[in-house]
Every structure is written in structure tokens, then in C-alpha cells.
């Protein structure tokens, strides 16, 4: 067997470093696109979840325009299909493993829809990269939706009541009162999700995305070393994630310091 890690093995990796740098670029691109897709999806999902869309409201109305006493009819009248769909989506995505979701998207969805095969930036294979960001984006959209929903719901009910009592509509209340306060609360959580995605994106090497992990695999089969390329990957992931989370923590501190000053 011999030693697990040999210093001279690192010199074997030398010629393959280009794969690692390209893998790093892919990982960063993958994460940025994933966050963008996830963020937009989350806004749509959160809006659906918190919407007051009641298409069956007429069922619960009596002829003179009042609410009926019948509890079943009231329940139907209250049913919000948009909120139901969004909730179902979020719960399914959160209750299944990412790898299953990625395989379903890659082999299932994009097995039926064929993507154009081309390479961009010289080393990113579109037909593998695209399913990767779709799958990760769909997954992270579910989590980001929950972050946004809890951010909006964490704002004291009294704020809504005060705004509505002044005659502002529910939309105006959301726009002027709730969202400005909620966004400040959830920014750190959204930034944290970005760090999570950088790490989670490693799983896309299973569908052939040439990220950092796929570089590890290539080096492994070319040089018959495993620990050394893994350590290189560890170092790269750490250098991506650690500064990012430190930056987030710094911004978070800055923001809460502002709060304390106001409290004087």
C-alpha cells in the first residue's frame, strides 16, 4: 500500500492544473447562474405562496354579498391554487435528494428535449452545463422561496395592520412597508445560500459537467492518485467559500451596527 499521500505525487498533478482552473471557472459560473435562476424562481414561488388569489371565492358568497356559514363552501372559497402549487413544489424539492433531481432533469427532461451540442469559453459543454444549472436552480429556488417567505412573514403583523388601516392596498403594503424591511433581513441568508450552492454544485460532475470534481476524476484516472487531487480540490473549494462567507459576515455586521446606532 505505502503512504496514502506522497509529495512527489503532487508533481504528477502539475500538467493537469489547467483542468483544475477550468473546473474552478465552471464551478463559479455554475453557481452564479444557479443563484440567478433560483432567485427569480423564488420570487415567483414566494409571490404565489403569499398571494390572495381565490378564484372560487364566489362559492362562499350568499346572494346578498355576505360570507356563507357552510364550512365546506368556506374552505372551497378560501382555496388558493397558486399557493397550493408553489407549496407542493417547494415541499417536493426539499424532500428529495439533489442527485435524484439532477438525474431526472438530465436523463428525463433533457433526454426528451435535445439540447444543441456546443462548447463555449473553449471548455464548457453546453449540453451538460445547461441541465446542471436548471436542476440546481430549481432546487435552490425552493430553498430561496422559503427564505423569502419567512423573511416576509417575520415582519410584525402590526406593520401590515397599520398600513392597511391607513387605506393602503395589500400590494402597496407589500411594496412600501413589508418588502423594504424583509429584504434587509434576508440578504445574509440569500448570500449564505450562494456558498451552499458553490459546494453543492460539485454533484453536477455526475452528469458530466467539467467542474472541479470532474478535474479530480480526470487526474485520478490519468495518474492513479486520489488523495492528492482531492486535496487540491479541497483547497480550491475552501478558497472560494471561506472568503465569501467572511465577506457576508462582515456585511451582516455592518448592517446590524446601523440598527444599533438608531436605537440610541
Amino acid at each position, binding site marked *: 500500500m505505502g503512504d496514502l499521500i506522497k509529495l512527489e505525487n503532487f508533481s504528477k498533478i502539475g500538467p493537469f492544473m489547467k483542468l483544475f482552473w477550468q473546473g474552478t471557472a465552471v464551478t463559479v459560473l455554475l453557481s452564479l447562474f444557479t443563484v440567478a435562476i433560483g432567485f427569480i424562481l423564488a420570487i415567483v414561488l414566494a409571490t404565489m405562496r403569499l398571494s390572495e388569489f381565490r378564484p372560487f*371565492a364566489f362559492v362562499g*358568497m350568499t346572494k*346578498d*354579498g*355576505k*360570507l356563507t356559514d357552510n*364550512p365546506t363552501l368556506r374552505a372551497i372559497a378560501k382555496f388558493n391554487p397558486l399557493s397550493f402549487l408553489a407549496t407542493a413544489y417547494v415541499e417536493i424539492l426539499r424532500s428529495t435528494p439533489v442527485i435524484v433531481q439532477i438525474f431526472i432533469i438530465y436523463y428525463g427532461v433533457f433526454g426528451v428535449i435535445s439540447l444543441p451540442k456546443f462548447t463555449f469559453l473553449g471548455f464548457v459543454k453546453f449540453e451538460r452545463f445547461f441541465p446542471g444549472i436548471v436542476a440546481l436552480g430549481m432546487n435552490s429556488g425552493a430553498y430561496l422561496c422559503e427564505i423569502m417567505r419567512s423573511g416576509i412573514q417575520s415582519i*410584525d403583523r*402590526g*406593520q401590515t*395592520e*397599520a*398600513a*392597511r*388601516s*391607513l*387605506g*393602503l*392596498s395589500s400590494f*402597496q403594503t407589500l411594496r*412600501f*412597508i413589508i418588502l*423594504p*424591511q424583509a429584504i*434587509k433581513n434576508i440578504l445574509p441568508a440569500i448570500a449564505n445560500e450562494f456558498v451552499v450552492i458553490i459546494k453543492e454544485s460539485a454533484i453536477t460532475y455526475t452528469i458530466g459537467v467539467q467542474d472541479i470534481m470532474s478535474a479530480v476524476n480526470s487526474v485520478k484516472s490519468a495518474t492513479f492518485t486520489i488523495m492528492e487531487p482531492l486535496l487540491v480540490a479541497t483547497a480550491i473549494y475552501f478558497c472560494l467559500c471561506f472568503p465569501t462567507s467572511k465577506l457576508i459576515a462582515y456585511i451582516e455586521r455592518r448592517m446590524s451596527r446601523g440598527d444599533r446606532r*438608531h*436605537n*440610541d
Partner: protein
Amino acid sequence: MATADTMIEVNGLKKHYNRGAIKALDGVDIAITKGEVVVVIGPSGSGKSTFLRCLNLMEEPTEGDINFDGVDITKKKIKNAEGKMVKLDIDKHRQKMGMVFQHFNLFPHMTVLKNMTLAPVELKKMTEAEANEKALKLLDRVGLRDRAEAYPNQLSGGQKQRIAIVRALMMEPEVMLFDEPTSALDPEMVGEVLDVMKELAHSGMTMVVVTHEMGFAREVGTRVVFMDGGRIVEQGTPEEIFGYPSSERLKSFLLKVL
């Protein structure tokens, strides 16, 4: 009961929670006339806050109707001038009913001035310049003009509540609803808020006030309503209620609070 001057008329108002297991309001009838200062008193859990919050539909009543300016606002749809059924716009009615909360509920991310001008400007009731001018006048009236650019968390509780009152006044409401406006205040700040309310009452504003301040009820109220168990048990002038209470429940309540 309703006369030409009736502003709010409530009939058979009920509010149940948990499918009727809890009856917060169990049939309330009252008519409030223009210019009246109705003070609602009662033990906690008597339904007085729920009653007040039903008046502008912060709580949706289970049963009964609330006529405000001749419109039953508990209806989802009403007949318009042409006799067609249209959706009732509760926001329009709320603009005419100011509300002041126990916990102030100022918007923490806005200056005092912005807190006051947001609604009238967004609802196209006045231009920004007009709103600013009106806000500064109102701030003058409550002695807080120099705090116009402050943020809510730079203010004391008493200041916050005075701002909350003038914020509601910005919409030029026909009636002001007060939900225990002094209950969250330090004792030394209660007076400054009550003074503003007193001045408001003397200016002829119609007011419905839920409070534990018996002194205020006696001095400023034109009518005192005693609630218990989700019903109005007794009502009358302050002299009648405090001087000659007739029901046992009111007598024992007054013994505890006076």
C-alpha cells in the same frame, strides 16, 4: 336607533374563533353618532379590542353588520349607484377611519415625516408638497416638529404614539379608533398621549377609544360602554357609569380598577 347623524351602526356583531368554541364577540349592537367620544372599558378578554378591530375590518366578523356612512362594510359585494353588484372596496372605507394601536406600529425604515406622508401621497389624496406642509402643521400641533427627520427608534414611546396619532390624522378621517393607546407606555408618558387625544376630542373628532384609563373615560368620554363576555353589559354617560353602576359585573369591575 339610526338618525341622520349616525356614523357607525353595528347590528348583532359576532366574532367566533375555532368554529365557535371561543366567542370573542357575542352579539354587539351600538350606534355611534358624529362627534361622540365613545370609551369602551371592560376586563381583559371581554372583547373590547376585538369589537374595535371589527369596526374597520382588521378582524372579519363572523356574523352581523357594520354600517359606516350608510354602507354595510361586512359585505363583500354591494350595489353601486346603477344598481349593479360591485366589489366593496374596503381600502376606501379604511381611509376614512383612522386607527391607533397599542404598539404604535410606526414604519421603522422611514422618517417620521415619511411615515405621515406615505399614505396620503400614494393614495393620491394630496401632492407631496401639500402632504409635507400638512404633516409639519400636525407635528407642530403635538409639539414634535423638530422630530420630523427622526427615525421611529430614536423616539420615546410617548413620542411614537403621538406620531402614530397624527399619522392617522393625515388621511383626514371621519372617525378615529384607539386600541389601548397608552397600555404599552411608561407611566410618565401616558399624560402626553392623553393630552393629544383630549385636544382631538375637543376639536369635535368622532372617537372610539378602548382604554384602561378611567380618568380619561370620565373626563373626555361622552359615552362609556362597559363590555364583558363579548357583549355590551351597560352603557351611559360617564356620570351614570361611574356614579350609578347598575349591574353587578360593572360594580365589581369598578371596585377593582378605581
